[in-house]
């Protein structure tokens, strides 16, 4: 909690993760839209309903009742277990991402209330190293899941990730198994897990906890899959269908339960939790 409050003021001026200026270009319809209007619209394009990527903290305010959030495991930080050799050191890369995002890692976890219902929530942030999962993300999500199991409350995970973090090698890959094992126990305890997928959710995150929700919800037009579209195109040497790996495509193929707009997310999760009670 302390950490969360502490970093909040300095974060307000970079709340908007879309380019500076009065106008922004929509990633989806390519229209130039008035920035204030996008902000007022919960960072959703007023022309085409594209949901811009937002920070974990913004999501937190959209999903959790004000003043109820207690951060968990906010003090654990990444190390460089492989002494990863790149043109830039992993440590420098982490530092750069800390400055850029105002975060210490790619996920925030904690407990709070959702329209009064006590829940444990983990929210990933794509702005920190592409939301990649290394030891810290794996550990924080596992602890959050264990906390939910122990307290007997629902678990909500909002995913946004390019996949496992290369710089921590096999330590990253094994986090997939670690979190999945914790989720298995949460399920065995008869507790609901709601997985919310946002743009983008891929690789080691989609192939572990993101796809294990009792109920899986996605934001409109989010790109979601196992392999990235570029890798697939290179492998099969074919052009991909227009809507390939979009949330609506996953819905059509029976892979998720529903596509829900940002403005309706909290209410939807609340109704689901109420119906599962």
């Amino acid at each position, binding site marked *: 909690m302390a*950490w969360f409050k502490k970093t909040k003021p300095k974060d307000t001026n970079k709340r908007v993760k879309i380019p500076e200026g009065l106008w922004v270009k929509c990633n989806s319809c390519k229209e130039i839209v008035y920035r204030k209007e996008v902000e007022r619209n919960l960072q959703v394009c007023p022309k085409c309903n594209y949901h811009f990527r937002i920070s974990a903290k913004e999501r937190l305010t959209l999903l959790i009742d004000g003043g109820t959030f207690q951060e968990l495991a906010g*003090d*654990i*930080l*990444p*190390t460089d*277990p*492989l002494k*990863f*050799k*790149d*043109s830039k050191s992993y440590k420098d890369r982490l530092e750069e991402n800390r400055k850029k995002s105002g975060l*210490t890692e790619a996920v925030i976890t904690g407990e709070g209330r959702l329209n009064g219902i006590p829940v444990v929530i983990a929210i990933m942030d794509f702005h920190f190293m592409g939301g990649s999962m290394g*030891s*810290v993300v*794996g*550990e924080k999500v*596992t602890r959050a899941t264990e906390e939910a199991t122990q307290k007997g409350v629902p678990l909500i995970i909002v995913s946004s990730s390019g996949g*496992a973090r*290369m710089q*921590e*090698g*096999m*330590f*990253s*890959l*094994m*986090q*997939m*198994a*670690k979190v*999945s*094992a914790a989720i*298995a*126990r949460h399920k*065995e305890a008869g507790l609901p897990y709601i997985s919310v997928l946002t743009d983008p959710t891929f*690789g*080691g995150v*989609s*192939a*572990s*906890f*993101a*796809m*294990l929700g009792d109920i899986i919800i996605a934001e409109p037009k989010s790109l979601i*899959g*196992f*392999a*990235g579209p570029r*890798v*697939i195109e290179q*492998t*099969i040497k*074919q052009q*991909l*269908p227009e809507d*390939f790996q979009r949330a609506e495509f996953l819905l059509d*193929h*029976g*892979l998720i339960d529903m596509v829900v707009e940002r403005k309706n997310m909290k209410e939807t999760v609340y109704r689901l939790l109420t119906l599962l009670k």
Partner: protein
Amino acid sequence: MIRYYLDFEKPIQELELKIEELRRLSNGSDKKAEEELGRLEQQAETLRNEIFSKLTPWQKTQIARHPDRPFTMDYINMITDDFIELHGDRRFADDPAIVGGLGSIDGINMVIIGHQKGRGTKERIRRNFGQPHPEGYRKALRLMEMAERFRKPVLTLVDTPGAFPGIGAEERGQAEAIATCLMVMSRLKVPVISVVIGEGGSGGALALSVADRLYMLEHSIYSVISPEGCAAILWKKNGEIGQEEYARAADALKLTAQDLLKFKIIDGIIQEPSGGAHRDPEAAAMNIKETILSTIEELKDAEIEKLLEERYKKLRRIGKFTRQSE
């Protein structure tokens, strides 16, 4: 037998060809030639040991992918007294990139599952180069659940470049299939033993290796991303990449069995014969069999609840992080 030699195996090839030639000529009658043969064989052994004790991570990657290296079905044929392959996920198809079935090793019945690469162009394509589709993982799940029902231990052999990145695979839920394997294996109520026999390629390999004991063959690899994929992400923007960059990436990723044992990510290393498993598949198979039998002996009387608790703790420990000092 036509053998394939990698560049750094070429000195071994020269000697081995010489030995074969001499053996053919001497026909076992010439005493002098026999002495010379013995000397050359000794020399070859020394050379193999020398080269293989100093393999770089990139060379190990190439050995792990060696076309002559024994694959899952080769090992199954060598280590089982009986094996019946079972097919299909009962939902969509049978995936030839994952094989599985009921087998018996030294009289112990178990369910055996593994990634399967092909030998020869036609077979390699049929096996999709060992890259499974979701139905492969769902077949594995079906067999694991069967193992649980009949209380048979599960053995998995891991050897894949990764799960297949394709349109059908995505449409049918590749991510969900892998995720479900991870979750189900973590709670499977029978002992699970995994051996990485060649290439442990990312999530597609992990999906079959959540186990009570995870072993790797001495020259196998296990990695979050292929050296080629890693090199492309890191250095492609600076121009063309090739062997040198792949070698750098293989180094950086710490993907060898020796590194992963040091990190306590795996439980043990299974020795390969001199010159690698492909030089003497029978010897490699016997080492695997011995490890499986001693592990079964160790796990067979464990109470299920305790086994699951230990399996959870084992996964739970993996990860490196620090605490904020303030």
